[in-house]
């Protein structure tokens, strides 16, 4: 793996990032040259309409998709230089990803879902310590009592808490969340958001794509994407 030559202040550095998609109608530019730096401990909200490129940017940062051109460095890792296998290992250990629709494994219980990244990443020595950590995270998310239920047996908000706990399983510095409150009611969305705030208070860095301007107004920095470009970058 190629490491970044300059380990400076910013946890996330994006330079000249472009992403084009091939469509039957021709090439579609989803991201048109993004330059961005996110400092350690920042809580960044990314606003924009559907199709503005929010999810594409999240996918680029987490290695879910590959840029057409440009550089992405997260921590000390040049993400754009990694192959699929290296990205999977890196993502498992260094990034937490949260989706609007939770993406939990339906056959596993909540605690098993949280243990899964530790299992794949071979972290935390043994099953006992993995279990203890998973339970600890679920307690933090205030859903320990549902630990042994399958995701289908808990509510949407509770599922998202499990998904957050899973994202924190391997203690990543950086968490990317794509519309994490999009499918939750306002009360639940607020509770989930408070969890994010707690995570930032503990030193985590979060990039959150959202449509919710109220929630976005509560974070330290807001980005506005329009047609694949960052048109506003304001710190509140």
């Amino acid at each position, binding site marked *: 793996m190629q490491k970044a030559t300059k380990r400076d202040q910013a946890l996330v550095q994006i330079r000249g990032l472009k992403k084009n998609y091939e469509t039957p109608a021709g090439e579609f530019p989803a991201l048109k040259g993004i330059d961005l730096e996110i400092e350690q401990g920042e809580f960044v909200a990314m606003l924009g309409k559907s199709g503005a490129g929010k999810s594409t940017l999240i996918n680029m940062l987490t290695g879910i998709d590959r840029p057409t051109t440009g550089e992405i460095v997260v921590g000390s890792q040049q993400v754009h230089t990694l192959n699929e296998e290296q990205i999977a290992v890196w993502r498992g250990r260094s990034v937490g990803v949260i989706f609007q629709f939770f993406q939990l494994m339906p*056959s596993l219980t909540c605690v098993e879902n949280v243990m*899964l990244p530790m299992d794949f990443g071979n972290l935390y020595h043994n*099953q006992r310590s993995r279990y203890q950590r998973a339970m600890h995270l679920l307690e933090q998310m205030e859903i320990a009592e549902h630990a042994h239920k399958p995701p289908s047996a808990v509510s949407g908000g509770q599922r998202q808490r499990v998904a957050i706990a899973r994202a924190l399983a*391997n203690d990543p510095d950086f968490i990317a969340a794509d519309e994490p409150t999009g499918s939750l009611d306002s009360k639940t969305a607020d509770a989930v958001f408070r969890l994010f705030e707690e995570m930032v208070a503990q030193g985590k860095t979060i990039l959150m794509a959202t449509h919710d301007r109220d929630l976005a107004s509560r974070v330290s920095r807001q980005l506005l994407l329009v047609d694949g470009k960052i048109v506003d970058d304001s710190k509140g």
Partner: protein
Amino acid sequence: MEQTPKTYTARPRWLKVLLDIWENRSRTALVVASIAVGVFAVGMIISTYVILATDMEESYGGSNPANIQIRTRPFDEDFVKIIAKLPGVRQVEGRNRTSLRLSQDEGKTWRSLRVIAIDDFENSEIFIRESVEGKTVPADREILLESRILEEFDVEVGETLQIQLSSGTVRELEVTGLVRDQSIEGGPNAQAVAYITMDTLTWLGQEPSFNRLMITVEGDNIDLANIEAVSQIVEDRLEESNMPLISVINSPSNEHPSSVTVLAILSVLGAMGGLMLVLGGSLIANTLTALLNQQMRQIGVMKLVGARNLQVISMYLVLIILLGLISLVVSIPLAAWGGYQFALFFGDLLSISIGSFRFVPRAIVVQALIAIFIPILAGIFPVISGSRLTVEEAISDDSASKDGGSGRFFEKLGESMEWISRPLLISIRNTFRNVRRLSLTLFTLTVAGGIFIAVFNMQASLNNFIGSVTGLFKADISVSLSRPYREIEIASLVESIPGVADTEMWLSALGDTPKGDGSDIVFTIQAPPAASDLIAPNITQGRFLQEGDTNAIVVAETIWADLPELKAGDTIEMGINDGRAEEWTVVGIFSFPERDADFILSYAPYEIISQQTNNVGRGTVLKVVLDEQTLVNQERYANTLDTLFQDEGIRFESIEEGMTTLESVSEAISTLVSFFLGMAVLTAVVGSIGLAGTMSMNVMERIREIGILRAIGAVDSAVMSSVLVEGVFIGFISWLLGIAVCVPISYGLLTMVSLAITNSVMPMVFSATGFWLWFLVIIGLSAIASIIPARNASRLTIREVLAYE
């Protein structure tokens, strides 16, 4: 709520594998059934194969079978001693085989019984009889019965039987034992056989002489060449003693009398095993591909949280292996049981003693290999391609818009063929949306259909063969006379025997025609009277002989080996018995079972042949028709004729019972036909499970699409008919392909079976029954297999369907 504290010793990924099996029990059952049915079929076939082969060899070899069985004129113990001293002869026993009439109801009804008289049961070491019940050594005036008699007669040990002598006198014999004799051929028409001492034979009014020699050879008793060499020495000695050789059977010690049939069955079993393996393999590939398609999103999520390709691959390989192991656990006992039952069935039919139930290690090993490696082979491609999917591809939610590239083709099809309704077009388009899945499904169903139809073609071909053979063996007894005898003399003598219905005198002659290369083609001519009822060959070209025919000849298809262009209506130059060549018209050509026969059988009018050979009113072949047309009766009258002709000084070369050849062939064929029908049912079951599985998986995969359709206003019936048309359409395509595939399968199976039975290839007959029966089966199954999952899908609410994971 109070939670039960848990400790985790298993990694979540392995828990997921186990839970995937346990929590999707209906899907697991489907996959297990797909694997198990192929593993079961192969295991059962191997079990049957091994049990039949080993038990046949053990039980037959264990009875110390005769390597040479000679039937000749009566002889005594002194002659047996002479034979015993010949080089190469290890053991020899004389036996008397005759026929008697048996009654169980004080003479109200009589049946024929074949009786074997042995001089010294205590020291009889050839074809050792195995005890079933009671004694194995009868005292004088006692009788032992071969156990298969129970299939025909209801007899018990201790019962007294009435035996009628040729003089009409009735004697009583007590049944003191039931035995099993490996020398007796089994089959649907197996004869009732009994054993008595020579003293009892005398008491029953028969001559105390032998008419059969049972010989075992020194040295290699499974080497036919060795056996034939010894047989030649014995035959030469018989000739020296002026003893005519009525029949001789040479057989190795490991060759059961039914071995021809068994060989045919075993070779077909092997071929069926191979086909079932192909069928099972495609079924497994099909089901696993569908299973992995369902897991794509989960694979994406696992990769999202850090799973590497190898970890994903190993998880799904373990899942596949576990499913294979479950299938193995299910199929091993079922296959062992089925194989044993099959072996018992054939053993009973073919007179092979089958030992107790057992598991066949070879079958289990092959089953284990199939259950583990075939699913891995079938699943490795989808597993690897699944593991290589990027997270984005795996979790992106556009499954409803995936098309496999066929969409535009069907758009154009719809535009050009406006008469096709839109829903029908969607169904047909859906059929092709996953081309790989469709190919696998079609492959499975096509192979199943091919086997199913081929089985019926085989049945028709075998029945056709029986039909063609039957016409050649209509007389009950054929006697080849040593010289021409006056018809009136022989007919009046034979027709005076009670039980003889009719006689005909034929002539036999040799005809020769130049081949063109300096050599001659020799015809073996049989000349029946023009009005003969005793010959009806299966004419494939032209016609048979008619009254008024002059130089007309009907020849067997074997002529084509020498004259491939010959057809009905052609003329040939032919001389009879080295006489002057004349022009003969080939009026017909008939099929003959042995295409490789080294003679060309032909029929010409008696009236002409008798004139040309100066034998008008005389014949060299006596054809006898009896009132009771059973093999036992034919044998009985053959003995009577033997005695009569000796007494009258009429010299003959052989006496043959008409049903002997036919019976052994038809036994084998009727056994095979029942076996093939069993195979057809098994194939239909495998195919059905495959289709049901595929359609279920198909609908499960499309459940979100169904939800979308319903959300935009499609009613349940529209959803169901869409799925139904798709299923039936797949069934219909597979039926068309099955018709094509059945041709090579039919030829392959028929070649194997007919080579084993007749040492020649029987003509293929295609049966419409198989085609239409499979059509009904496949269309019915397609409909059922589609309707059930479609109904289940239509019962879900739109919310449930769209949230389906």
